[in-house]
C-alpha cells in the first residue's frame, strides 16, 4: 500500500503548473517517502529487522490480481536485496531536488524526477515479472525527457541513443522473460493463471527453479538455462553498463542535466545489477557457474578499460561517467567470484556508488553551471575562487578513488578479499589480481590529475575562463552546499559504520548461498 502511494504521487504531481509550489510539493513528497523508508529501517513501520528473512521471502508483501487469465499480479514486496536500493532511491530524490533547486522549467522537471523515482522504486519492489518489465521500461520515459528537454548541445542524439540502446537490450530481455513464462510446467505454480496455466510471480518462479536446480539437475534443461541466462543478462549488462555495451552512458551523462545524471548514475545503473541478482542468478545458478569466467572477463574489462579511458578524457563529466563504468566492473567481478563476500561487495558497491556517484555528478553539474564549461582545465585555482565547490570535489573524488573510511573503500576491499579467496580456493590464476591492482593506481591517477588542473594552480592572477565572459566567479549556492553536505555525511557514515547497510546485504548473500548455491554444489542434500 505504502509503495503504491509512492508511485501514484509521482504521477499525480505531473499536472501541476507553478514552479514554486510544485517544487515544494515534490520535495515534501520525496521527504515523506524518505521518512517512510527510513522508518521501515528503524522498525517504526512494521517490525522488520531485514535480517533472517530467508532467501526468496519478502516483507511488506502485497498482491492484487491484475490480469487473472494470464497470471499477472500486482505483487510488491521487499527483502534485504531490494530494500537498500529503495532506501537509496528515496534518499537520493530529495537530495537531487535540493541540489538542482534552480533548474529551469521546474514545473515539469521536478515531477519528472519524482516519476523517475517512482518507476525506479517500482522496479525494485516488483515481485511479478510483468510488473517488473513495465516499471523497467517506465524508467526510460522520464529519463528520455529529462535528457531531451534539459540536456546539453547534443541532447537529441544522446536521448535517442540512450532510449533505443537500452530499449533494444530490454527487448532481448523481454523475449527471455516471455520464453521463461511459456516454458513453465502448466499449472505447476500456485498462482498460475487460468488461461495459460502459467504465472509471472517471481517468488514462485524462483521456488520452482530452486526445487529443480539441485546437484547436476538443471532447471529447464542445461541448454535452455544457458540461453535464457544470456538473454536476461544482455538486458542487465547494457543497463549496468558493462564494456562493450557502455557507450550510451557517456553520451547520456554528458548531455543529461545534473539531476538526471545523479539519478541515472545513482540508482538507474544499479537496476542492472539488481536485476542480475533477482532473476538470472536466482533462477539459473547453474548457468551462472557456467558463465562465471565470461562474467569475470567482462567485469575485468569494464574495470580496466573504464579506468584507462577515464585517464584519456578531457571532459570532466565524461571522465566521471567512465569511472562509473569502471566501478560497475567491480560489481560484476564481485558476482563472478562466487563468494558470499564478493556478492556482498557487489551489493555494497551498488549502495556506496549510489551515494558517491550522485555527489560526483552534483560536483560536475555545479562546475558546469558556474563555469559554463566541462573541460578539465577550463578553471584553475578553484580552491581560491569557489572553496566550497573545491572541497566538495576533493571529497567526492577521494571517496570515489576508494579512500578508507569512506563508503567506496569497503566495497573495494571486500571485492579484493573475495577475489583472492577465489584465486586461492578455486585455483584461479594469480594474474586476475593484476587488473584490480592496476585500476587502484589508475583511478588515483585520473582523479588526481583532474584535481591538479581544477582545484589547484591558478593563483592570484587567475583569469576567469573565457567561457565566463568576464563575469566574476561565484561559489556554489546554498542548496547545492546542503546537498553536498548530506551526501558527504552519508558517505562517511557508511564508510565508518558500513554494517548499517552491510549486515542485511551480508545476510541476504548468506541466505542466497544456503538456498541457492550450496544445494547446487553439494548435490541433492
Amino acid at each position, binding site marked *: 500500500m505504502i509503495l503504491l502511494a509512492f508511485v501514484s504521487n509521482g504521477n499525480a504531481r505531473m499536472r501541476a503548473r507553478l514552479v514554486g509550489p510544485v517544487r515544494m510539493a515534490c520535495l515534501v513528497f520525496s521527504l515523506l517517502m524518505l521518512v517512510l523508508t527510513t522508518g521501515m529501517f528503524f522498525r517504526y513501520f512494521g517490525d522488520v529487522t531485514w535480517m533472517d528473512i530467508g532467501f526468496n521471502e519478502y516483507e511488506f508483501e502485497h498482491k492484487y490480481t491484475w490480469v487473472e487469465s494470464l497470471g499477472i499480479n500486482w505483487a510488491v514486496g521487499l527483502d534485504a536485496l531490494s530494500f537498500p536500493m529503495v532506501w537509496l532511491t528515496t534518499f537520493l530524490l530529495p537530495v537531487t531536488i535540493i541540489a538542482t533547486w534552480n533548474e529551469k522549467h521546474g514545473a515539469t522537471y521536478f515531477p519528472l524526477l519524482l516519476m523517475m523515482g517512482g518507476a525506479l522504486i517500482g522496479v525494485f519492489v516488483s515481485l511479478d515479472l510483468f510488473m517488473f518489465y513495465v516499471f523497467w521500461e517506465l524508467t526510460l520515459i522520464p529519463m528520455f525527457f529529462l535528457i531531451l528537454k534539459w540536456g546539453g548541445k547534443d541532447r537529441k542524439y544522446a536521448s535517442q541513443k540512450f532510449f533505443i540502446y537500452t530499449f533494444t537490450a530490454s527487448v532481448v530481455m523481454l523475449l527471455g522473460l516471455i520464453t521463461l513464462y511459456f516454458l513453465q510446467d502448466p499449472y505447476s505454480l500456485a498462482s498460475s493463471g487460468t488461461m495459460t496455466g502459467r504465472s509471472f510471480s517471481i517468488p514462485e518462479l524462483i521456488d520452482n527453479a530452486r526445487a529443480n536446480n539441485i546437484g547436476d539437475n538443471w532447471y529447464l534443461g542445461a541448454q535452455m538455462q544457458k540461453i535464457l541466462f544470456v538473454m536476461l543478462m544482455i538486458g542487465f549488462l547494457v543497463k549496468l553498463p558493462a564494456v562493450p555495451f557502455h557507450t550510451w552512458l557517456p553520451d547520456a551523462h554528458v548531455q543529461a542535466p545534473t539531476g538526471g545524471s545523479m539519478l541515472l548514475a545513482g540508482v538507474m545503473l544499479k537496476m542492472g545489477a539488481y536485476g542480475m541478482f533477482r532473476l538470472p542468478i536466482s533462477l539459473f545458478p547453474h548457468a551462472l557457474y557456467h558463465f562465471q569466467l565470461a562474467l569475470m572477463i567482462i567485469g575485468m574489462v569494464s574495470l580496466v578499460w573504464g579506468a584507462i579511458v577515464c*585517464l584519456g578524457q578531457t571532459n570532466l563529466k565524461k571522465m566521471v561517467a567512465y569511472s562509473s563504468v569502471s566501478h560497475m566492473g567491480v560489481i560484476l567481478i564481485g558476482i563472478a567470484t562466487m563468494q558470499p563476500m564478493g556478492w556482498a561487495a557487489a551489493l555494497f558497491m551498488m549502495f556506496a556508488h549510489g551515494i558517491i556517484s550522485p555527489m560526483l555528478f552534483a560536483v560536475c553539474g555545479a562546475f558546469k553551471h558556474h563555469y559554463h564549461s566541462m573541460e578539465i582545465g577550463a578553471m584553475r585555482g578553484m*580552491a581560491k575562487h569557489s572553496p566550497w565547490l573545491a572541497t566538495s570535489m576533493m571529497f567526492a573524488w577521494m571517496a570515489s578513488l576508494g579512500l578508507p573510511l569512506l563508503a567506496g573503500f569497503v566495497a573495494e576491499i571486500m571485492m579484493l578479499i573475495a577475489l583472492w579467496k577465489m584465486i586461492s580456493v578455486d585455483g584461479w590464476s594469480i594474474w586476475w589480481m593484476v587488473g584490480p*591492482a592496476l585500476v587502484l593506481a589508475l583511478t588515483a591517477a585520473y582523479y588526481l590529475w583532474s584535481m*591538479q588542473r581544477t582545484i589547484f594552480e591558478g593563483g592570484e592572477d587567475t583569469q576567469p575562463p573565457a567561457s565566463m565572459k568576464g563575469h566574476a566567479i561565484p561559489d556554489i549556492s546554498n542548496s547545492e552546499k546542503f546537498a553536498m553536505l548530506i551526501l558527504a555525511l552519508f558517505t562517511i557514515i557508511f564508510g565508518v559504520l558500513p554494517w548499517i547497510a552491510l549486515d542485511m546485504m551480508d545476510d541476504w548473500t548468506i541466505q542466497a548461498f544456503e538456498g541457492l548455491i*550450496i544445494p547446487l554444489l553439494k548435490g541433492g542434500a
Partner: protein
Amino acid sequence: MVAGTGTDTIIDSELMQFAPLIILLPMLAFPVILFLGRVFNRNPFWKDTMKEGGIIALVVMASSLIISLLLIKDHLGGFASMKDSVDFLWLNSSVYESGNLTSISFGFGIYIDHITVMLLFVASFLCLLINIFSIGYMNTDPINDNRNHRFYAEFVLFCSGMLGMVLADSFLWLFIFWEIMGLCSYLLIGFYYEKPSAAYAAKKAFLTTRIGDVFLIIGLVMMWDMFGSLDYDVIFSAVEDETFMAGVSSSTLQWALGLMFIGAVGKSAQFPLHVWLPDAMEGPTPVSALIHAATMVNAGLYLVARMFPFFGSEYLQHDLVDLAFIIALIGGITAVMAAAIAFVQHDLKKVLAYSTMSQLAYIFTGLGCAMFLANTLDWQTDADAHYIVIVAFGAALFHLFNHAMAKGMLFMASGSVIHEVHHAHHHLHHHDDHHDDHGDHDEGHEEEFDAQSMDNMGGLASKMPLTATAMLVGSASIMGLPLIGGFWSKEGIIANAWRVALEDPRFFLPAMCVLVGAAMTGFYMSRMWLKTFAGKPKTEVAAHVGQTNTWIKIPLFVLTFVTLSAILFAGMGFTHWAPDSEYGLLSEKNLFDGIAYEMSHAFANGDTFFFILTYVAIAIGAVLGPGLALSLYGGSLAEGEKVKPWMKPIIRLNAWVYDRYNFDNQAIANSGLSRALENRLYFDHYYDMAMLKIVAGFSDKSAETDKNVVDGVIKKIETGTQSISKVVRSMTTGSARDYILMVAVGTLGIFFLLWGVA
C-alpha cells in the same frame, strides 16, 4: 619472555578505555577547526587569540600526549602487550570454502606493545611540539593569513591518522590510517595550492605512495587469506603455532610480506619509489618536519618492524632470508644514493629531505639485518642468539627514535632560518621602498630571492644562537658524532650489518653501503650547517637576520635536550632495545647501570673485529666526512660577530681548516656525475616521461579507440538501420500498382509458408 613477539600475556589496563581518545580527539577536532575557521574567518579573536585554530589543535594534541604518556608509563614495566577490549565491529561477511560458509569480521581495537610504545611517544610528542612550532611559523607569515584554519584542521587529521596507525590492532586498520595520512600529506603538500609546483608535488606524492599501497593491499589480502584474520594477536600467535604453520606455504608468505614491503618502500620514500619526498618540501615547513621527516615516513618502518614475528618464528627458520636481504639491500642502495644527491643540493630543505631518505634507509638496513638474524639464529632458546637479535632489532628501532627527534628538530630549525631570512628580506626591501619609493621594486625582487637557498645564507651562527645550536646538535645526531643521539643507534646498525655480512656474503653490499654512507652523512650534514651558519653572510639579507619568536624556540629547546639525552632513554630501557627487561626506571637495575651497559656495549665490546669496525665508523663518520666539509665550506665569521661559547670551537676549527686546507673543487662540481646528482640521477625525469609518454599516450589512444571503434560499431549499426529503413521507406511509393504487387507477393509468400509448414 621475548621482545618482538609480545603476545605471551595480555594485560588489561584501566587506562586502555581512554586509548581510543588519542585517535578520536584529533579526528573530531578536524571538522570543528574547519567549521569554526570558515565561520569566524577574519574575526580578530579567532585570528589573534585562537591563532586561527592553532590553540584548539594545541589543546587536543596536548591531551593526546598526556593520555599517551599515561599509557606508556603503564607499559614500561614489561614486555607484555595490551589489547583493548573496545569492540568496534567494522564489517561482517562470509566466505565459502570447501563446502562451508565461514563468517569473517573486521573490527577495530587498540594494541600496545613495545614497538607501539616507542612510536606512540614519538608521534604524540612530535605532533605537539610541531604544533607549537606551527603557531610561531604559520601565523606570523602574512601569506597564510585567513587560511591557517585549513592547515590546523589537516594537521590534526594527520595526527589522528598517525596515532591511529600506531595504536591499531590489525594490519587492516594500519592500512586505513596509513591512507588517511596519505590524504593529509597530499592536502598539506598542496597547501599553497596556487603554486603549480605544489600542485604537481602533491599529486606526485599521492600517486607514488599509491603505487606502493596497491602492493600493500594485495599483500594484506594474501595475508588475510593465510591467517583468516588481520589482527596482530591472531596472526602473531598463529606463527608460533606448529600445527597451523605446517599448513602455511612459506614462499607464499614471503611473497605477501614482500608485497607489503613495497608499500613500506613507497611510504618511506625508498628507492625506487623515492621521487616524491624531495618535491614534498613544497609544503609549509612544519609539514615537512612532521609528516615528511618525523612521523609519516616512519610508517613504512613501522610496518616492517611489525613483520618481526614472522621472521622470528621457529617454524619459518631460514625461509624468509631472501626478503630480509631485499629489505637490507633497498636500504643500502637508498642510503648511498640519497646521501650522494644531498651533496649537491642548494636548498636547505632539500638537503634535509635527502638526508631523511638516507637515514630511513639506514633503519631499513638495520631492520633487514635484524630480520636476517632472527630468521637464521635459534634465538628463542639460545640466550646468546637472543641477545644478538634483540640488540640488532633494538638498534634499528632506536635509530628511528633518534632520527625522528633529530630530523624533526632540524626541519624546525631550518624553518626558523627560512622564516627569518624571509622576514629579513621583507624588512630590508621594505626599507628600500621607503627610501627610493619604488612600489614595484619589492615584488620584482620577491620572485628572484629564494629564502630556502643556502647560497643566500651564511654566518647566521651569531644571529640565531638557539637555532644554530639546535641545528648543530641535530646534525651531530644524524652524523653519529660520539655520545650524541644517533651515534648509539647508528653504530649498532653498522655493526649488525657487518655481523650479517660475515654470515651471508650477499649482505656485504648493504654493509658496505651503510659504512660509506656514514662518511657521506658526515659530509653533507656538515656542509649544510657550515654553509648556513658559518662563514661570512653571502647576501645582504643574511646580514640582517634577527632572532625568532618564542613559539619557535620552545620546541627547538626541548628537542635539543631530547637529542642530547638519547642515552638516558636507552638506559631507561624505554622501549626495550636493551637486551633484557631488567634495565629500566621501574626495574631492579637503575638508570646508571643502563647507561654503563650502553657505553660498554658501544665502545668496548669484546670482539676485535667489531671493536675496529666501531672506530673505523667513528673515524670516517665524525672525522673524514665533516673534515672535508670543513675545508670546503664556511670559514671565519664576519668581523665583530660573537657566538655562544659552545659553538666557538667549531667556528674556530672551521676557520682553521678552511684557511689551511681549502682547495678548489670546481672541477668536481662541474663534472658529469655532479650534474647527474643535481638532476637527482634523472629518476624524476624518466618517471615523468614514462607517465607522459606511455600511460598518458596509451590512455589517449584508448579513449579514441573507445570513441571510434567501440562506439563506432554502434554508430555503424545505427546508420545501417537507418539505411535499411530508407530502403523500406522508398517502397512506400504511393503508386497503387506497386501496392497490389506487394500484396500479391505477400499473399503468395504466406501461402507457401503455410504450405511448407503443413
